[in-house]
């Protein structure tokens, strides 16, 4: 590392890793419930497991993004982070709010609004926490020696992500209004501002790993985030088809959301081309794998599998079925899970001074988790398509269909085990690095 305060990143990532493991545990609880093993029903009913699974996902990703910002911003701005002690305070409060929310879900303390289950009183603590985070990052950036495009795009993503949290806190009497503004958070996050965060991290990694000129990479970064907003903002309409608002969204949402994959395609082409162009032979191959993997799998999971059900004619039948779950898994994994694991893989050797670049454990982690997740996507997909035909086209009863497709969840559990084995290798590798230390200062290969 180049600045001592970059070490803070490590602790955010350690939290991230811990929450990822918990998230997967709750995934298994749901998987087993779906094949009829509901032994935990009294303590952890399905809705508790689900809210915990998805919220842990969001929090580990956010903690991963925050770690990335604490690592990247000092290096880009060429100065130490301002007030590192406050960053630790922010980490602890983030962990506390997260734990409180998760415990609450087990005690029926929540607001059943998919992805935004955190009760409003806790929302306010989230707001304070994020303001503190943004303050530290932005002051560091703007008092630094450089304001690079990479740092600006990353910070802009984080800033707008915070701002867009607010519409989700408004209370409505109408389910339609509730849903309408819930998407301002959920959709405008994952198909908008989070792509800026992803783009910023991707650009940083490509600059470091391929050695291609910063000017070239950052120009493409603007093109990518330009495509993102151009399509993604009006693409929100793909969630407004069938919730009780005007039909105009069928046209607007249909057209613009069909364009959304372009941003992901640009990201994949960009990453692969920069890799081809790059002359630097960076020894941290595994970080390069994760980086290119994120760009490619996000194009498949978000771009192609999103496109598969985004036209209103298709969505009419797939809306709210396991087809959505298929897409949700590969999109979140490819775009945001993998980019967080990529920046960790890149930064850990620099933070700890241990050059464990190409271990068999890290390669197993990469391949097992990705093959596992692709297989899980397939299992969800087969179950989803069968559900759409049996239930929505031929009118079979919901539970009869669920019993028909049970077998795909047995397959899902096997593949999820493969995935979880990969993640286990990742976790072991993570902790084998040991703690970050000052001896690693200036030992970067870059």
């Amino acid at each position, binding site marked *: 590392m180049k600045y001592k305060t970059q070490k803070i990143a490590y602790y955010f990532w350690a939290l991230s890793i811990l929450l990822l493991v918990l998230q997967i545990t709750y995934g298994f609880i749901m998987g087993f419930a779906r094949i009829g093993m*509901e032994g935990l029903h009294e303590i952890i*009913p399905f*809705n508790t497991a689900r809210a915990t699974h998805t919220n842990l996902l969001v929090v580990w990703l956010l903690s991963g993004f925050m770690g990335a910002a604490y690592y990247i911003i000092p290096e880009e701005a060429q100065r130490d982070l301002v007030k590192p002690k406050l960053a630790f305070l922010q980490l602890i409060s983030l962990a506390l709010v997260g734990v409180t929310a998760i415990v609450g879900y087990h005690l029926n303390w929540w*607001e*059943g609004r998919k992805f935004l289950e955190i009760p409003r009183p806790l929302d306010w603590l989230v707001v304070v926490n994020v303001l503190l985070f943004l303050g530290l990052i932005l002051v560091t950036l703007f008092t630094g020696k450089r304001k690079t495009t990479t740092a600006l795009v990353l910070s802009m993503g984080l800033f707008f992500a915070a701002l867009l949290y607010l519409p989700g806190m408004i209370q409505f009497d109408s*389910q*339609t209004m509730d849903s309408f503004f819930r998407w301002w958070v959920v959709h405008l996050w994952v198909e908008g501002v989070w792509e800026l965060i992803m783009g910023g991290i991707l650009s940083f990694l490509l600059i470091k790993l391929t050695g291609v000129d910063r000017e070239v990479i950052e120009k493409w970064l603007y093109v990518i*985030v330009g495509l993102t907003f151009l399509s993604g903002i009006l693409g*929100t309409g793909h969630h407004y088809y069938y919730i009780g608002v005007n039909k*105009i969204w069928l046209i607007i949402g249909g057209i613009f959301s069909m364009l959304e994959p372009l941003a992901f395609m640009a990201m994949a082409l960009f990453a692969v081309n920069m890799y081809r162009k790059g002359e630097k032979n960076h020894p941290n191959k595994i970080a390069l794998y994760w980086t290119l993997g994120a760009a490619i799998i996000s194009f498949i999971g978000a771009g192609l599998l999103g496109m598969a059900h985004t036209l209103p004619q298709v969505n009419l039948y797939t809306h709210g079925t396991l087809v959505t779950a298929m897409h949700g898994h590969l999109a979140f994994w490819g775009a945001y899970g993998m980019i967080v694991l990529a920046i960790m893989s890149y930064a850990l050797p620099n933070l700890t001074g241990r050059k464990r670049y190409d271990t068999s454990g890290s390669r197993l982690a990469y391949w097992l988790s990705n093959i596992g997740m692709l297989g899980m996507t397939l299992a969800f997909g087969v179950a989803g398509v069968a559900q759409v035909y049996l239930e929505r086209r031929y009118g079979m009863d919901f539970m009869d269909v669920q019993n028909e497709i049970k077998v795909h969840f047995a397959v899902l559990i096997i593949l999820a085990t493969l995935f979880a084995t990969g993640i286990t290798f990742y976790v072991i590798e993570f902790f084998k690095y040991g703690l970050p230390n000052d001896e690693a200062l200036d030992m970067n290969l870059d």
Partner: protein
Amino acid sequence: MLSKKQARALFLGGTVVTFLIFIGLTVFSLSKAQDQTNREDITESVVRGKLIWEKNNCMGCHSIFGEGAYYAPELTKVVERRGEPLIKAILMSESPWNPKGRKMVAYGMTEEEANDVIAFFKWAGNVDLNGFERIVSPLAKERLSNQN
């Protein structure tokens, strides 16, 4: 080829323009004249029902308007399909309702609470969902009778 400056202009310009259109469409589609939800029918009972729906995270297993989880049936138009007495019995039951081998949480609601939830379902069942209400499974009575 595009310069970095032009790329930035594309980003900023595109964002501002599409965002303004988005706000315009939002205002338009939420205006009173475009209402498809029968706003005047949202009584206090419906609002209480919605709060009970949220407080118990029913959406963590079920879906409504196609949004939520995929573990239990879609509940748009559920009153039409199953009838009030059955729904009431399920909500007020002290032991888990367990149809075809999948358990629901036993909420043991009072009769008033159950009535509020049903009022919420009835309101939701009358919202014009641009055709989705006819697709949602198990089939709405309406569609069954159209087919026969």
